[in-house]
Every structure is written in C-alpha cells, then in structure tokens.
C-alpha cells in the first residue's frame, strides 16, 4: 500500500478519479483477483491489459457494482465507497462511473431510443430528460463523436457494431466522469477502431478518466497515457506510456517465460484418424493425425465453439464433411454447464459420458445401467486422476473447479478415445489445475493407441506450449501457421493478416 502511493508519483489525490487497492475476489476455490490495484486519473486514457483469466473482467464487474469484492478498497474522487458491502450498479452510475460492457447491456426488443432513455432518470434524478432535450443532446453527441445509429429500430435488428455504438452513446448520455470500456474494439471494423480511439482521446481531453480494457497491444500503446498490467489477479506493472515498450508490457503480461517452454515433442505417427471440417466452402481442410496435438488459436467469437462442437460430433457441420472415429472425447469449455451436472453425484456424471457404452449396459435390450460397475469405475477414476472428493457419491457441485475439471478429463480420456477435442480446458483454473490438464493432454501422445488431439484455445501460450501444429481461427477460417513462425509474435501476425 505504501509503495503504491510512491508508485503513483506526482498525482495529487484530486486528480485520481478511481483508485482501487488490494482488491481480492475468489469464486469458490478459484482466486480471480489477489491484491489488484489500479489508478485512473482524470484527463487520461488508462489501459488495463492482461491475459485471459488475469482478472480484468472480474475487476470491471466489481467496479461497475455487479460483483461484491471479498476485500480491498475502492475510492471514487478521493472518497472511499463500498467498504465492506456490495454496491449497486445504480450507485456506480450515480458516482459517475459509466461502463460499456463487452456483452452489451441492451434490451433486445426495445428500440435504440428506449434503451438510451432507460435508467437515465434513476441516475440523474427527477423525471429524467424530456424527449426533446434528449434529442438535442443526442444530436450534439452524434456530431461530436461521429457515432450514428438508427434509434427507432429494435436493438435485436441492429448489427453488432451498431449495438456497440448505441451502448457507448447510452453511457455518454449520462455524462460519466469515468468511462470504462471492456474490450470495445474487438467487435469493430478497422476504420471504426480508429474513430473510437480518437473519440476516447477527446473524451479524456474533456477531463474525463477513460479506462480501457483491451488485448490488442498496438491499440493500447497508441491511445493510452498510462498502463496497468494484471497477471493472475495481481497488478504487476503500473507505468506511463513513455516508460514502456510493447515488449516490456508483453513480458509483464506473460510473466515467467521459462515456465511456458514447450516440451520435447513426442514421436508422431500418421494415419488412422481423419477428421475434416470446413467452416465455409472455401475453408481450409483440417486433418488430425493420431499422436498429434493440433492447436487452434484465436480471439473469442471467431467460430471456436462451432469448430470444437463439430469435431466432437456434438453439432453437425453446415457444409463440408466430417469423418469422425467412434470414440471422441470432448472437454467442453463451460464444464459447469456442459461437462457436468452439479446436482448429480460423481458416478452419475461419469455415467453421463458413458451411458452409450455396451459395457455399462445390462438387462433386456441393454435398458438398464450397471450402476455398481460405474461406481467402481468412478472410484478408480477419482483415485487414478487425483480428484479430491469424498467418494463417488459426492455431488459434483461440491467439488472445486479444478477437481471438477479433473473429473471431466478423467472421464473423457479414460475411455481410450481415438480423438480428443478440448476447448479452453484450463479456463478459470488455478496453476495446479491447469498443469494437471496440460500434463494429461501431453501424456496422450505417449500412449500406445495415442489419439489425435484438437486443442481450441484463446490462451495463446497454452497453444504454443502444447501443440505440434498450430492453426489460427479468424472469422471462421483456419490458416496454418508455418513451423518457423510459432511464436507469440508470429501467430499474432497471422491472426492480424487474416482480418479483412
């Protein structure tokens, strides 16, 4: 804390619009924030960067009043708020914090105008803006910002870009002193990105504090006055733009580079398994081979989900052809919803993935399940994969996130699959949990009957450290990354290239 004040340097308390210190928040056993701090000053664009899972979204959710912190301090304009209690989104608004969400907080069936009016009264008091004055303000804002949206159409009929413009307009209408934007450029076309960054600078110049969360470093460096880097829930770097380079920021984000070294490659055998998929008629064919891990890197929302589900046989391809082996293991991204049933016990959750297997069926026409066998198998899986649980009869929901994922991995990999599809398998896990998953995937390659593995991940380091071949997935198109370019920069460049 004392060092913080020193690090803040010349700033006088009055300049600081939002100060966050020693913020902590855990979700069950998963620690999302572990002493994060941040200082956004009036008149500046402040960038908050970090890897996926570094805690950026959690921090923003707390700042916007959606989540309660476990510990820590938030000061707005020098006054402490929300000490020891949750504060509401409404309070956040009324303290002048305006939030542009990554997932837009717009009501789909209301028109743009209705969405703009929504809640203004709550923030500004009284009966809100008369429609005429709203119109005037809007006109002025549109002129100043160049943000134009059709306001009389229901939001559900607008494009993603239009919805974002609406969301920003909505926040600006409330005239916030601190403007927070969560990954705002990820849905915009390049010329729009330029416009947005210019707008952010203008808004800061008017005396606002602008807090920008982003993952594209070049954009961040172009626009930010100050930068805060989060890693594993902690603030690891706070600096002015002039004090850092792209390289130093990237290093701060990644941390100990040694821990992420790729392992020695196992022997790869070719043949046996073929899975083909094309996202479009002109999509690239993807061929998976036994004993090989193919990594697919990409920013979220580029078709990862469809790719993973199609190759796992859980969805049918709109076009193209998929040839799948009989046994496909699937480690879905959202284990709580898609991989497990929380109210079921562990045996039942193992049965969920195994119920079609003739070995566990019995009775006339195989109508019944061999529960005793399944229970024994579950016991063996718990033991063999080190799932920390009281026993096969424990409810899945009572396990920690890491142990839930261990159970899913154990169930999926145990059945001697010929193809393994893993979608962001370490998301939300702590270090030990992530290492377990990585080791389990690597171990597959050394099996006698090694399966083909497809790893779809938004965590570039995970892909780099595990995969034998790497593809980028941008807007539904797969492009292979040549062996020589398998570095962060190389893959990143490929991803940028693929953008129109």
């Amino acid at each position, binding site marked *: 804390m004392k060092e913080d004040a020193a690090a803040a340097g010349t700033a006088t308390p009055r300049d600081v619009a939002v100060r966050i210190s020693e913020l902590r928040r855990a979700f069950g056993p998963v620690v999302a924030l572990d002493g994060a701090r941040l200082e956004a000053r009036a008149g500046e664009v402040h960038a908050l960067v970090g890897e996926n899972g570094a805690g950026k979204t959690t921090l923003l959710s707390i700042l916007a009043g959606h989540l309660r912190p476990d510990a820590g301090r938030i000061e707005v304009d020098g006054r402490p708020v929300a000490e020891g209690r949750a504060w509401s989104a409404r309070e956040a608004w009324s303290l002048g914090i305006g939030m542009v969400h990554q997932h837009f907080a717009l009501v789909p069936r209301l028109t743009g105008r209705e969405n703009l009016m929504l809640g203004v009264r709550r923030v500004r008091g009284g009966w809100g803006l008369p429609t005429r004055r709203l119109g005037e303000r809007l006109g002025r804002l549109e002129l100043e910002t160049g943000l134009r949206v059709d306001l009389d159409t229901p939001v559900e009929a607008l494009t993603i870009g239009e919805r974002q413009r609406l969301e920003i307009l909505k926040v600006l209408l409330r005239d916030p002193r601190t403007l927070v934007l969560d990954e705002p450029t990820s849905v915009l076309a390049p010329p729009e990105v330029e416009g947005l960054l210019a707008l952010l600078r203008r808004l800061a110049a008017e005396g606002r504090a602008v807090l920008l969360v982003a993952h594209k470093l070049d954009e961040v460096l172009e626009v930010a006055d100050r930068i805060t880097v989060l890693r594993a829930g902690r603030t690891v770097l706070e600096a002015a733009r002039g004090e850092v380079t792209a390289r130093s920021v990237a290093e701060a984000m990644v941390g100990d580079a040694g821990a992420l070294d790729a392992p020695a490659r196992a022997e790869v055998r070719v043949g046996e398994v073929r899975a083909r998929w094309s996202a479009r008629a002109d999509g690239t064919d993807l061929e998976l081979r036994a004993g090989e891990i193919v990594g697919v890197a990409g920013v979220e929302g580029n078709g990862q989900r469809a790719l993973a589900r199609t190759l796992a046989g859980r969805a049918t391809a709109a076009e193209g052809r998929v040839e799948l082996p009989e046994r496909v293991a*699937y480690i879905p991204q959202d284990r709580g919803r898609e991989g497990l*049933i929380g109210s079921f016990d562990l045996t039942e959750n193992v049965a969920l993935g195994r119920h079609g297997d003739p070995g566990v069926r019995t009775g006339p026409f195989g109508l019944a399940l061999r529960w005793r066998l399944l229970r024994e198998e579950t016991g063996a899986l718990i033991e063999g994969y080190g799932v920390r649980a009281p026993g096969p009869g424990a409810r899945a929901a009572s396990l920690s996130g890491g142990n839930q994922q261990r159970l899913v991995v154990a169930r999926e990999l145990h059945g001697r699959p010929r193809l393994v599809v893993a979608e962001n398998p370490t998301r939300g896990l702590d270090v030990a949990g992530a290492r377990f998953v990585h080791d389990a995937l690597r171990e597959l390659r050394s099996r006698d009957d090694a399966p083909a593995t497809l790893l779809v991940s938004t965590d570039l380091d995970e892909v780099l450290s595990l995969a034998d071949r790497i593809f980028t997935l941008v807007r539904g198109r797969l492009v292979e990354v040549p062996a020589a370019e398998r570095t962060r920069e190389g893959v990143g460049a490929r991803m940028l290239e693929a953008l129109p």
Partner: protein
Amino acid sequence: MIRARWWGPLVGVGLALAITSLALALGGYDVSAALAALWRGAFGSEQAIASFTLKRSVPLLLTGLAVALAFRAGIWNIGAEGQLYAGAVAGFAVGFAGGGLPAPLLLPLVLLASLMAGAVWAALPALLRSRNGTNEVITTLLLNFVALHLTGWLVQGALQEPRGVFNESAPLPTAAHLPTLWPGTDLHIGFALAIGAAGALWAIFRFTRAGFLIRAIGEGPEAARITGGVRSNRLATAVFLASGALAGLAGAVQVTGVDRKLYDALSPGWGYTAIAVALLARLNPLAVIATAIFFGALQAGAAGMQRSAGVPFAWVTVVEAIAVLGVLIAARERTPR
C-alpha cells in the same frame, strides 16, 4: 431447483398443521377435538381407511406421478387436469361401447384408451414446446379448459343419459367396472394399479438408462446434450406424452372404479393438487405414494372434521397450500453475489 432437502416437506407439513391449528384456535374451534375428528375420519376404521382415504388418494397418486415425471425432465406440465378429463372421456367411451365384451378384455382396452387420450391431450403442448419453444405452462393450462368444456358438451349431447335431464352420461355396463380390491369396502384395484405405476416409475429412474437420461435433461439440459449426446427435444417430447398418459389413466380409473358415469365436473381439481403432491414428495415416485395418501387422508378426515367438529372442509386446502409454500421457501436456492 424444486427438489427440497429431505426435511423440507416435513417442515412444510409441520408448518401447515401448526398455522392451521392456530387459525382454528383463534377462530374459536376446539382444536384437539378437530384433530381427533380428522384422524378418525381418515384412519378411524376399515371403512375410513379404504373407502375414504385410500380411494381418494388414487387420482391424486396417478396425477401426482404424471406431474413428478414431467417435472423431473424439466417439463412444466400443469395440464394434468385436462389430460385426466381426456382419459376419462376416452375410457368411458370405450367402456360404454364395448359393454358386450367380457371384463378381462374390456378393462385393458378402456385403460389403454385413456392412456392414449391423455397422451394425445399432451401432444400439442409437447409439439409446440419442441418445435417452437412455446412455454408449456400456458398451453397446458389452456387445454385444461378446453377439456373441461368439451366434456361438458359431451355429457349434454352425444353421451348424455337417455332421458336428457341431467348433465351426466348413462351408467357404464358392469363389464367396465373396476373390480374391488379390499372386499367389503369401495377400494378398487385402481389403487393397486397406481401403486404399481409408482413402483415402475421409481425403478425406471433408479435403474434404467432412460430414467437416468430423463433426470439428466431435467437437471442439466446442456450437459445432457453436449456430454451425454442426448437428443433432448425428442426425449422431452416422449416424457411429456407419457406424463399425459399417466394423467389420462387417472381419469379412466376414477370413472370405472368410482363414478361409473361421466360427469361434467368429475374432478375437483386433482390435476392442480397433483402439483402439490409431487412437490411434497420431492418428485420421488415412491414418496408420491405417501404424499398422495396423506392428501387423501386430509380430505377424508376433513369430511369427518366438518361433521363432528364443525370445522369447514375447506381448511384442508389451506393446509395443502401452506405446506407447498413452506417447501418452496425451504427449497429455494441461495442466490450468488
């Protein structure tokens, strides 16, 4: 979500009895006399047990099972009432038309017809749910009224008794009467049938793959689809129809076992009470036997309570309602944040 902890139903029932006793005391009734009359009316004699308590529990048991089955799969079928009417009408029609057949042949036909009619009555909501995602709560509710009015139309028209005076049908031929289960009382074999259905449903949930998958689509529809590879729409539709069939069976059992005629208001709302029966049983088919008998006993006892202690019959409904509210509040999930 609606499967309370095991003590939830006990708390609910205890709370209900306590609140109603208090209300009765405040209302100037003699509570201990009222409770004694309640007990005598429900369990005081062989007749009370068989001809009142158990006989009244049969339609509650079958519709309770129908609701438990649907709710287990995450289907909000609140149309058991209408499905019961559909089954009653179809069962009556077959029994009436097949009067010349011997009972061992006719009765299975009657019951089969009621199963099918109940399923047909559930088919439209099931189809709309799986095709368009239309909320089944409103569609099943609407069809209850359609069934009620169509039954009324039939007993004043095509199926009316020959003299055309009363809003009821002619009596069923004896071949279509369900045999007595407990000699000397009114308890018919429909009770055994319902117990058998509960046992079968329990075994299906407990042992079979289908039962397991039904629970899976109810508890975790996404996981069932993604991890379990279940075609959940198809399975849910099948469960919906089966639920309707069970409720339809309740209608035919009531008509052939008790009423032996078709009335326009043959059910006092069993299909709605069934929701309370199923919920109090935590959707467990074996426990539905217990809660259905409990509700049957309450209703049988309430009649006695009204006769000898002057306590209005309607108090029973209040007990049922408070018990359900108690369970709901005990079962609620804590919300995050």
